[in-house]
């Protein structure tokens, strides 16, 4: 797979591709925790309803609730062990002399190439969770709304370095719309 066409398009060899921090997995797993709790709550509620009412149709309600709960739990588990780690490990970026490459996605692969001269804003942001984990999201904004260049899960010090480096390169190569 090292020199397959896929490799050449979405992960050009010979470049220094940098992965995002594994800590991003923790941040991305948090919403799944919510899903997990929701599933457990559903399960408990379904059982409670089934126990309370002996009436006809109670079985059906119970089955419905356990079905929903099972779906939520399976979703949470699959997301936890399968989707999140793969998504995080697929998120990579590389700095070239003239442009920045961001590659992401497993099921749907995406690559964005942004010439430094086109960058208008470089944004470093962190929500409370990622701040606690010491990671930040670096977003590059161009004049185009469809440019999708977000790098989440960059360690804070690396993010600051990256921001400064990009800003310097951008300034040197500034261009209009």
């Amino acid at each position, binding site marked *: 797979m090292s020199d397959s*066409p*896929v490799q*050449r*398009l*979405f992960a*050009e060899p010979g470049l220094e591709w940098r992965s995002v921090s594994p800590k991003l997995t923790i941040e991305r797993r948090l919403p799944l925790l919510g899903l997990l709790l929701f599933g457990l709550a559903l399960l408990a509620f379904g059982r409670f309803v089934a126990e309370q009412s002996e009436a006809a149709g109670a079985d059906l309600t119970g089955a419905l609730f356990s079905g929903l709960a099972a779906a939520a739990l399976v979703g949470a588990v699959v997301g936890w062990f399968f989707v999140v780690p793969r998504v995080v490990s697929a998120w990579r970026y590389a700095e070239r002399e*003239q*442009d920045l490459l961001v590659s992401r996605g497993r*099921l*749907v*692969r*995406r*690559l*964005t*190439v*942004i*010439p430094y*001269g*086109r960058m208008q804003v470089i944004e470093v942001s962190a929500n409370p969770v990622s701040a606690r984990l010491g990671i930040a999201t670096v977003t590059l904004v*161009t*004049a*185009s*709304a*469809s*440019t*999708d*260049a977000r790098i989440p899960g960059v360690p804070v010090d690396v993010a600051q370095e990256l921001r400064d480096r990009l800003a310097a390169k951008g300034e040197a*190569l*500034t*261009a*209009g*719309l």
Partner: protein
Amino acid sequence: MSATDAAPAAATQASASASTLRRLHPLTPFFRSWQLVGALAASGFGVFRDDLDKLKWIWRALHGDVEVSLLMRAVGVLLLVALALVFVSWLSWRVTGFAIITDASPSGTLLYHRGLIVRQRSQVRLNRVQSVDVNQPFLPRLCGLAAVRLDMAAGEGASVNLAYLRRQDAWALRAEILRHTAVARSRPTAATDSTEGAGGELIAEISTARMVQANLLDGVVAWVVLVVWVVALVVGGVVFGWRGLVTVAPGIVPVTVGIAVQLRRQVASMMRDANFRLRRTPTGIQTSSGLTSTINRTIDLDRIQGVRLEEPYLWRRLGWARVGVDIAGASDQSHHGASLMPVADRRDAVALIAEVTGARLDEAAVVPAGAQARWLDPWVARHLGVELLDRGAVTRWGRWRRTQFFVPYARVQSVSARQGPVQRRLGLATVYLDMPSGVQRWQAQHRDMAEAAALVGELAGQARLHRAPLRRLEPTLGTGDR
């Protein structure tokens, strides 16, 4: 607008006393209050509709069954309301004014004051103006009035509409504004640009016959559907009896409405494209069109960020094509692109594109989509293709409405690629060029993987090379705090 604008802005505010402001045409309040009267009438009708008795009352009143004084009073109230409306809009007209001042920046600033209760004072730096259009809606047109519309790069919210002025004044104002914007770009402007009609060199004109033909051919499906529908209704009526039709009316009405909407769109586009004229001006292209209301738009060549050549199926036999342009920050029709040429011979259309953007379509080799693409999109795959020119990239698509879309490398913001799971199976990927807002995203669908990789590299390289800055932006960046 950045912080650097603040200082000169404050200075200009002081220097523009109310006396130097120019007023809009005195008839403006009438046209403005017409809309209010219309709204009032609509709400009045809403009240009466709920209570048909009142309508009956009016009927009787008109026949003199009710005391005359009561009717007089009602009419009096109505008159009073109308007068009050006119008075209020007259007041707001009094505080509305504009002026062009030149002391703040070399290119001039347009002040626009308005608002009776909430006072609004806009300052438009004329070197930021993207286009100046003179429009004539139907009613004001009857009185020889026109509106001047200034579009800014920021889009809808930032544009200024000076309505209404006398037609000559509107054109003179437009010329004045253009002179100021031209100073900013240190480009010569010809005074001829100002005069209406004679302004610029006439490049093309479309005869009404051809325009109607073209529109009919383009929308032939809608007309055929209409004919089939009417025939079906009549046959149904004859066979099952008209009463039968009434019982299935709930099914008939929506379909009819749907067809009517389609046809209305057709007729609207005919009205819009009638009397189409294309002129060349020193800074760009000027189009004027419209049957009932005339729309003049000036397209600065610098603003064009994408051009498309469309050939609907039935036009191809006749060798006709349509040219549309995408403009950054365009407020209206941003999705379909402004029409640069509603219909022309294909050769002329291609020549026009070459003149406007420097892109010579059909000259480079067309690289078709990957062979596997037919599994994904069997109808269109054969018609997909990419053509790389010196100045920009062309993508082609469409089986029925064959379209070529050109974007200049100089405007490309970033290059993207995307591959879905099915595409991966087939070894395909789609390549995108991300353009400034207001411009359709350029996409080359279903490229072979190896070719897509080469394409991304090539396009990114070209986007880097052609980073020629906009001439308009350059001086303002430098002179902001001078």
